[in-house]
C-alpha cells in the first residue's frame, strides 16, 4: 500500500503535469481556484485525472466540492485511498 506521503507527492506531480502548474505554487495552503487558477470546469478534469492515477472512484461530489486547498485535496485522496485499501 502506498503511504500518505507518497499519495501527496503523486497528487502534486499530477497537478503540476496535467494543469501545467509551477511546482513551487503547489503548497498545501494554495487554494485551487484563486491561487492555482482552476475553475469549475477544471474540477471535472482533475477528478478524472486523479481517478485514473489512483485507480479509484471519487463519486462523492459533496466531498469533492468541499475541497478548497491543495491540502484538502491531499486529505480527500488519502482518505479514499485508505478506504479502498481497507475494503481489499
Amino acid at each position, binding site marked *: 500500500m502506498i503511504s500518505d506521503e507518497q499519495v501527496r507527492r503523486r497528487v502534486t506531480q499530477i497537478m503540476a503535469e*496535467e494543469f*501545467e502548474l509551477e511546482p513551487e505554487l503547489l503548497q498545501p495552503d494554495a487554494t485551487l481556484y484563486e491561487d492555482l487558477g482552476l475553475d469549475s470546469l477544471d474540477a*471535472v*478534469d482533475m*477528478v478524472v*485525472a486523479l481517478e485514473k492515477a489512483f485507480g479509484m472512484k471519487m463519486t462523492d*461530489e459533496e466531498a469533492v466540492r468541499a475541497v478548497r486547498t491543495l491540502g484538502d485535496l491531499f486529505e480527500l485522496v488519502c482518505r479514499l485511498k485508505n478506504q479502498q485499501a481497507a475494503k481489499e
Partner: protein
Amino acid sequence: MKAEVVVIGSGISGLTAAASLTKRNRQVVIVERNQKPGGALKHFVRKGIPFDVGFHYSGCLGSGGILRVLWEYLGVWSHLRVHPFPSEGNDSLILRNSEKSVQAFFSYERLEDELQQAFPNEAEGIATYLKALRDICASIPFYNLDLSLTPFLRAPLSSAKIGLAPFLTSLTKDPDLQAVLASPAFLYGVPPRQAGLAVHAMVAHAFISGAYAIDGGGQAIVDAFLATLAEAGVDILTGQEVESVLVKENQVAGVKTSEGEIYASHVIYTGHPTSLLDLVPDGIFRKAFYNRIRNLINTDSMFVVFGAVDDPGSLDDLTWVNHYAIPSGLDILDVNLKYPEESALLMTAPGRRYSDSALSDAQRGIILMRPASWDEVAPFSVDSGKARPASYKRWKAQSADRLLDQAKKLWGYSRIEPLAIGSPLTFRDKLGVPGGAVYGVQHCLNQYNPGARTRLSGLWLSGQGTLMTGIVGASLSGLVTAGEIEGLEPLWDEVRQCR
C-alpha cells in the same frame, strides 16, 4: 465572412442550436463537412427507396412531450406529420435462449400487464422497475417541465451512481425478465453492465410514454429545420470542413474551413469530442482536458442491412411493431462474439409508417441491424476515401447473408433483397465518428461526458457526446448549448411556454 455564431455540424444538435439562437435574433452560420446537411438524420436512396439511417422511432412527441414542445417553439413542428404508434404497436422481443416472446408496449399500463402475464411471479420487481423509471424522470426537467434547468445541468442526479445491472439483478433472478427490462439499452448503446439507471430511465421512460413515427423519417426533420432556418436567413455551408478554431487573445475569433475563414465570437462544435482536440491550437486546453477527452469510452457500432421486398403488404406485421431478438440476461450489447448475428438484432420498417402516398416506395424498405464491434472490420480498415480491399466486400456480403438468414429463422422473412450495407467502417466514414460509434461517446457509469462550456471563451460543445444521445438527447444538447450562450432559464422559459 462574418457571423455572430458559427455552428460546426448540421446534425440534429447543430440544427437545433442554430434554430434556437435565431429565435433570439442571433446571426448564425452552419458549416457542414458533408455535401448534404442532416448528419445521422439524412436518408439515402437506393432503387427509389429512401432509407433512414439514424432515426427509426422516437419518444417525447406527444402532447407536452419535450421534443414536440421544442419543435413547436422552433417553428418546425408545423412542417411535420407525426404519428403515434397505435395502442397495439410495440417492440416485440424474442428471447433467444428460451424462445419466449414479450410485447413491450409503449404505455405504462399495457406494458405492466404484459410483463405480469409473461412473468407471473415477478409482479413486485416489475412494479419497482416501472416506478423507478417514472420517479427518476419526475426529477428531470425535460420530463417535468415545471423544473428549472440549471440545477439539473450543474449537479448530477442522486440516481446517477446507481448501476443498471445491480438494480435489475436485485429486482429479479429471471434472466429473461432481466433482458426485457434492459432492452432499451439498444437505443443508447451502453451495455447494461456499464449503464447507469438514470440514463436508462430517460430513454426507457421516453418510449414507454409513447412512440412516434414521422412521415418521411429523419430526412423530413432535417427538411423542416432547413425551411425554418432559411426563413431566418441562416447560411448552411455544406461540403466545407472546419479545419481549425481561430483564437485571438484567449477568445474565439472564428473558424478556418477548407474554403476560407469565418469570423465569429461564438463557435459551437457538435462533432465527436475527441476530434475537437485537433481543431484547437496547442496551449488552449490543459493536459488534463486532453487526456480526459481522449480517453472517453465510445459506444460500439452497428452492422446494418438495408433491404427491400417486392410486396410492401408482406411487411404488414412490421408497420407498428419493431422486431427485436435479444439474448437472456444482461448481454444485449455484447460484441466480439463469434456469431454476433445470433445475439441481439432488430428488424424494422420505418417507411411502412409513412402515410404519404408520394412516399410509397419507402414502404418496401426494411432494415436489419445488430450491434457490431470495430474489431470486425479492423482488418479491412483503410483511410476514409481510399478503396477498400476485396476481402472487405466478401466479409460484408457474408455477414449480411447471415443476418438475413436470422430474419428468416426468427420471423419467416425470406424475400429480402439487400440494397445497401452499413458496417462500422461505413459509419466511421459517413458520420465521422471514431470506430463507427453509432451513438457517439457512451453515457455510462463513471464517465464524465463533456458539458457545453469549455475553458476557451466563446467555444461551446454540443451533440450526442455531451448531454445525451439519440434524437431527443442530441436535440436537447443543441437547446442547452444555445441556452448556455443566451442564459439558460430565459430560453427554457420561452420553450416551456409552448407546451
